[in-house]
Every structure is written in C-alpha cells, then in structure tokens.
C-alpha cells in the first residue's frame, strides 16, 4: 500500500467522520428539541423545513455568521484553543466505534480503553475554557466539571472492567461477539447501571448538569464564548452523548446483534433508544447539588463498583474454570 493510498484513506475516513459528527449533532439537537416538546405538550420547531428538521441547520449557519468576541481580560491563546480542544475527542471517538461487523473506521484492539481515555480530552477543553474566561461563573463551572468528571471516571472504569472480564478482550468487536447469545445487561445489571449513571455524569447532562447549571451559573464554563466557539462545545457535548449511547449499546445491549434487521439498523436503533432515554431523563429531573453529587459517587457508586467487580471475578472464575 503506497503512502498515497494511505493518505487517501485517511482523508476519506476523516471526511466521513467529520460529516457524521456534524450531522449527528445537528440531528440530536433537533431530536432533543422535539423530545422536549413532546414531553412538554408543545410542538417544537415546525417552521424551518419539514418537521423543523432544518431548524438546527439554521442555528448552525447563524452561529457561523456570528461575531467572535474575545473579552478584554481573558487569557487569549487558551481562550482561543479551548473550544477546539473540547471538540477534539469527538471525531476521534466516532472513528473508533464499529457500527457493525467490519463496518467502521477502525476497530482498535484496545478499543474499550481508548474510548474512555480519549473522551477525557474534552475535560481539558472545559477546564481551559473555564479558567481562561476570567469569569467567575465559568470558573465555578469548570471546577465543578473537573471534579465531577474525574470522580465518576473511576466507577465507570470499574464497571467497564466487569464487562471486559466477561468478554476477555478490550476489542469492541470481540465484546459484541461475546454477547451473541445473551446481552451483558442481563449478566451484569449492576455494572450497566453504574456505567449508565457515570456516563450521564461524564457528559454533563441532567441531573448531573452542574457545570453548565443555567439557574446558578448562567451558562457555566462556556458563558463567555460566542458564535462558533460556543457551537464547538455543543458539537462536542452531543457527540459525547452519542458515544456514550454507542458504548452502552456495545457493552451491554449486544451491539449490532439482533434478529431480522440489518446489523447497522440494530446498532442505530439501540443507540438512539439510549439517547432518547438520556434526553427523557433531562427533561424530567431537577439538578443535584455539587456536594450531593460527589457524595453519591464516593459513598455509593464507587463501593458498589468495587464490590461488583470483586463478585463478578469470583463468580466468573467459579463458573468458567
């Protein structure tokens, strides 16, 4: 394979991933508005395009044509870089997710670890955003985000390990293959719950949306960001929601396994179902307070995750060996 070939493949893969990231985020924002509208007895966007489908395109285009304001007292370079860093993991994550047997940009042999590691880059972007803004709301939002994300990281990792233990591999396609007969949500229900809760917290969604808690911190860490910079945070957030749903699908819901329908359809169906549940939660629950959030993690989730891993190790050895 020549260098040119590789380059072409990379460019193609990159284009495909970026297009997917953008379209998916726009679709998810539209979906979110429609879901919220249905939950709230409203119509949601209807005027722009059929069913308001083009509403989010209008929003995106508008944000592109919006003035960029860099406030006087910010840390200029960090401020400029923050949204880009926050957006960085989105395509990297999408690229590593197989959507069916052999379909996907790449299927890394350390896929599970890769996903968890890369998704934390966004946190760096958030911290940079909060700190560089020189705005107290942003600072508080960023501090909350960091504390919350690193805390929930640990039980999340332990929950994933329980799954890895069953599958015996970190490769995502292997994990899906191991669930051909029975999805892990049935074998590892506790791990599923822990992972689901943690990943909602990691993607800063209600009831864990403290970093951008609107009623307290106005807009949280992205308070000072205008136009496209703000849009990049949004893109990153919605991609993260998609990725979290995809991981739940891969690890616990049996991935693309399913009767009758095409594997890709199964995968997408399951993923968007999880996305819907996440949205449903958002439009139903109030928000926790920061200390309650932390206590919940350190006192409930983490011990539970440790016990879960311990018990599954013993049980697994007992049944297999």
């Amino acid at each position: 394979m020549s260098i040119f070939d590789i380059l072409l493949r990379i460019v193609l893969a990159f284009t495909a991933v970026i297009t997917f990231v953008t379209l998916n985020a726009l679709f998810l924002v539209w979906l979110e508005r429609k879901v919220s509208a249905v939950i709230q007895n409203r119509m949601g966007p209807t005027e722009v395009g059929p069913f308001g489908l083009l509403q989010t395109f209008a929003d995106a285009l508008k944000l592109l044509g919006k003035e960029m304001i860099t406030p006087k007292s910010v840390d200029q370079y960090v401020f400029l870089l923050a949204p880009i860093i926050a957006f960085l993991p989105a395509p990297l994550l999408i690229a590593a997710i197989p959507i069916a047997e052999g379909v996907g940009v790449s299927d890394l042999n350390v896929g599970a670890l890769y996903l968890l590691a890369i998704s934390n880059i966004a946190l760096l972007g958030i911290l940079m955003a909060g700190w560089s803004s020189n705005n107290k709301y942003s600072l508080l939002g960023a501090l909350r985000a960091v504390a919350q994300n690193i805390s929930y990281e640990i039980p999340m990792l332990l929950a994933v390990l329980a799954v890895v233990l069953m599958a015996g591999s970190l490769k995502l396609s292997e994990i899906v293959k191991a669930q051909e007969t029975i999805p892990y949500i049935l074998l590892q229900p506790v791990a599923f719950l822990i992972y689901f809760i943690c990943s909602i917290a990691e993607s800063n969604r209600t009831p864990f949306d403290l970093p951008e808690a609107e009623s307290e911190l106005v807009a949280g860490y992205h308070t000072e960001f205008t136009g496209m910079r703000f849009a990049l945070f949004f893109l990153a957030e919605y991609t993260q929601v998609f990725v979290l749903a995809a991981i739940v699908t891969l690890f616990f819901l049996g991935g693309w396994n399913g009767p009758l329908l095409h594997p890709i359809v199964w995968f997408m169906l399951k993923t968007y179902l999880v996305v819907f549940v996440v949205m449903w939660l958002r439009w139903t629950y109030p928000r926790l307070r920061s200390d309650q959030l932390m206590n919940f993690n350190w006192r409930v989730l983490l011990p539970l995750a440790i016990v879960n891993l311990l018990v599954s190790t013993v049980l697994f050895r007992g049944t297999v060996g």
Partner: protein
Amino acid sequence: MEQLYNILPFSMGIGTLAFGAFLVLLPYLISPRSKGRFRGDTYESGEPIIGEAWVQVRAHYYIYALVFMAFDVETAFIVPCVVILRSWDSWLPVIEVGAFLIILSLSLVYALKKKVLEWE
C-alpha cells in the same frame, strides 16, 4: 491496514484541530462586528465585575486530584489482569485482583474517614 490503524488517531487529531481552527476563524471574515463601549467587558449578570476570577484555589482541590490519581492508576493496573483472566485456568489472578480491590477499598474508607472527599 495495521499501519493505518496506528497513525489513524494521530492524523485524525491533526485533521480535527485544523477543522476546528477553520470553524473558529471563518466567522472573522463573514460576520459583522459591533463596537459598543462595553463589548469586551467580562459578563457578570450585567454588572461591572469586582476583582478577577483568577483567585487562589484551595489546597483541598489538589488533594482531591491526588486521590483521583491514586484510584485511577490502580484501576488501570487491574486492566491487563482482568483481560487475561479468561485464558488462565487458575484462581491465582482472582486472588490477586481480589487483594488489590480490597486494598483499594480500604484506601477509600480511609479517604472518606479523613473527609478528603467532602466537596465544597
């Protein structure tokens, strides 16, 4: 193909940075600008700000980060052990993982007792 996998995250990252930079810089060309007097002021509910946001952060946060580091690194150590658990026909790794996790939980109990994990 292996080659492709190896350079993929890297090249993807470069591409994303370029794309992000493009998106962030394009509006400078196509958007109008305003020139209000308070345009560059830090926003704080419409009032002028008192003092900067760049204050000292309490050492407490630092300890918090340390605790996280400890837990995260320990967890990362379990990963290989867990992966090969399937192919080893022995209780040894189970005991090892078990001992490791128990030590981990002891440190959690200690941290909770010392009230290191109280968030303010």
